[in-house]
């Protein structure tokens, strides 16, 4: 089913948002991916991915409060929708299923 298939980066982004719970906004998401994924992603790429996910309906966002660091500008908090959760589940199932079929000796 086209549209709910998640890209690798999209999956990571969604999972990171879930991990961050109420504190998922641009800067924190990037930092979390940097730390957990041990990789440096570009802000542009992340923002593109987030807005595409939002377009697909896997994410919603709302404006939050601003603070001094941000020059008084509000944060945009992201939240995973039910559709997003389903998509994640499906992705995980596919992977688990495939993992379970990989012969054990291949993994050593």
């Amino acid at each position, binding site marked *: 089913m086209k549209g709910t298939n998640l890209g690798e980066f999209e999956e990571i982004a969604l999972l990171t948002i879930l991990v961050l719970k109420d504190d998922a906004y*641009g*800067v924190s998401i990037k930092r979390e991916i940097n730390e957990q994924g041990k990789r440096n992603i570009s802000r*542009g790429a992340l923002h593109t991915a987030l807005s595409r996910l939002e377009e697909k309906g896997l994410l919603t966002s709302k404006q939050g409060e601003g603070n*001094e660091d*941000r020059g008084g500008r509000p*944060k945009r908090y992201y939240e995973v929708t039910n559709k997003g959760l389903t998509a994640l589940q499906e992705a995980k199932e596919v992977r688990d299923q495939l993992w379970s079929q990989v012969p054990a000796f291949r993994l050593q």
Partner: protein
Amino acid sequence: MSNKSAHQPPRWADRFLEWYCRSEILEDLQGDLYEHFERNTISKGKRKARQIYCLDVLNFFRPYTIKKFKIVNNLTSFIMFKNYFKTSVRSIARNKLFSAINVIGLAVSMSIGLLMIAFISEVFSFDKFHKDGDRVYRVNNIYQEQQEDPTPFATTSIIMSDRIKESIPGVESQVLMTRGFGGDAKLDEKIIPISGLWATEGFNDVFSFEILQGNPETMLSEPNSIVLTDETAKKIFGDTDPMNQTFILGKEDLYTVTGIIKKPPFNSHFTFQALGSYITYTNQNRKGERGENWYNAWNNMWMNYVYVKLAPNTDVNDVNQRLLALGEKESEKYEHITITSELQPLYGMMAGPDLSNNIGVSIGGAVIWVLAGFTLVVLLSAGFNYTNLSIARSLKRAKEVGVRKVVGATKRQVFNQFITEATIISVIALVFAYLIFMFIKPHFLGLDPSIERSLQLEITPILFLYFFIFALAVGLLAGFVPAMFLSKLKTVQALKNAGSTKLFSKVNMRKVLIVIQFTLSMAFIISASIAYTQFKYALNFDLGFKTENVLNIELQNNDWQKIETAFASIPEVQMISKSAMIPSVGSTYLVDMKYNNDSTELFYNTIDENYIDLMDHEIIAGAHFTKKSSESEESEVILNEETLKRFNLGTPNEAIGKQVEIDENNLTIIGVVRDFHYDKLDQGIKSFGFRNRSNSFYYVNLKLNSSDLPATMAKIENAWNEVDPVHKLQAQFYDENIESAYSEYVIMGTIVGFLAVLTVSIAALGLLGMAVYTAETRMKEISIRKVLGATEGSLVSLLTRGFMWLLVISAALAIPLTYLLFEQQILNDIENRATIGVLELFTGVLIIFAIGILTIGSQVRRAAKANPAQTLRSE
């Protein structure tokens, strides 16, 4: 907020982000970036953080972040445009004088601009009809003798064609052409002179002239084949089908028509009436050892053109490299000369450099740039007028701007309004400019026969588009500064007191513009008068022989004996002589001369025994030629003094009797002629010799002594027609020959003079506007001064002084600049030239001063004479 200002991300990046980013996402995106920046500043340092910030901003420049086209915004500006238009038209109508000055000035200068656009677009449209023309190039030779400056030629050697075939890859097809094909076509009773080119069968592969009849591949392959243009075919054969017909061309050569090509269009850089198959030329000339050697010589490069069509993806530089290497190798055979070659693109021929032996006319890139430069100057002058007057008037518009701003106009909207006004003026000016353009076009084309032959300045629809765009551009540029200035006005200031000094902050800029305007005007006038002096100087120059009452008549392949006999019976003809060419009007003949293992190029003319007497040359030693039978071999030569010096031949008397080798013949020096100017005056005097060969005369020279010139001319024409009824008499007085040889000075003088008149009128208009304005705004001041006892004279000098100073500064700039320009650049290479006198330099300045005083004076006097009671009463 204190630490915020301490760590500022780069301002331009921030602005850029705000400019492109959609407002919905701008806020949080910028917030994220700020926060990120803040962290980076702490962890990585300020410099690094700023760098990252910039990169991030650029990185976010993606389709989904860019602002959408805002229809609403455009709608309001469209509505506002109606308002701008209305106010602009009202303001134009209200200030009739200023509008008139602007419209007239712009119209006059834009008409020149239109002329330039038509001119340039036509020049660049040349040869565009050839298919794949962007791959077609001509092989141009560069001829260099010893250490002298290399001379570029449009011609190359015949052998070049074979060399390209053998050693240069990447050439798809090529054509070799040679000048000099043609003669009188005889069919039944008809005799029609035709001229054209010898061409190989590659002609139709390289060029795409329209073929009406015949096989394009083979029409030029057989000997004695001829291809005619439809026009020529009609002249010879009338309405009968010309294909496969035969006729006699020249003396007795029989040619068969193998193809009909449509007459070359106007925008082809070369033209022809007929093409002869090249094999015919080869058969005629490649005879015997001498013919063979000549045909294959690398330096036989004066008549032949090679055009190549490169295969797609061939690198031109690569071909040029190979040509250069080839030329260097081939030139090793020659002691003193190096002949190399390079490619010239077909599309650049018309606007290309001025080459010797060109196949047709070319305008020359330099001329285009010079004309474009002049045009720009005239346009600038009119643009300055607009800027100056608008800024001066801004005083009156300031209130309007203030009110607009109070009501809510942004800076940009005010700017738009004034730009609109300038554009409207320039579009109105365009209408007038077009009328003027139509008027001056025929005059421009009529400047010189060569211009008329190569240009039409046809008006095409696309040209109208160019004209319109041009008008818009002029409007935008002219209106830019005033619009900037007015839109920057501070609302409060503009409303508080329009007359405040702040508004006059641009006064210096206005002065600078006026100075530039007048400097240019003066420079133009001075240049025109220098060109005119130069022309007069060339005409009156003592060439070293006499040209008065000498009539030169082209022989046009007639037997000179018959012609001579015919003219001899006319009593007004005092003397008759014959020569190969007419010296001193720009063309020269060259031949190799050797003496004692030394060799040089000898300029020469072939003459008969009467020529030296007739032209009144001074023989300083030795004798004249004597009459010989027409079969006798060439054996004698008369050299000039310079040649004796060049070869150390001793004094004139010592030189007599010595043998020199000229054109592989041993000739005895029988006389020495006083140095004279055999070339145009911009060239110096080098080695020159008179040769005496009976079979190479192309001109008859008549010395006339007539009290009734028209009657004599009629007699000469009758005598000519009796001998040769086919060709028209081609006769020109020597003085006229010289005059047309220097016509370039006249053309330059005319163009520059005309532009001078334009710039001066435009500048004077501008000055008038400024004077009117000054008089108007200072009316009260003048009245008060008058009431307090100032005399009219003192008032006039008060008001005039400022302007006069500007004129003096302009003169101080213009005179030395023009002088240096001519002295160092334009006239520098010219061997004989008139010195630039005080008169030429100062006439222009005086004219400008006179015009300036008149314009300002008229206004100022009016103001000074006005009754102070009238002006002060209204207070």
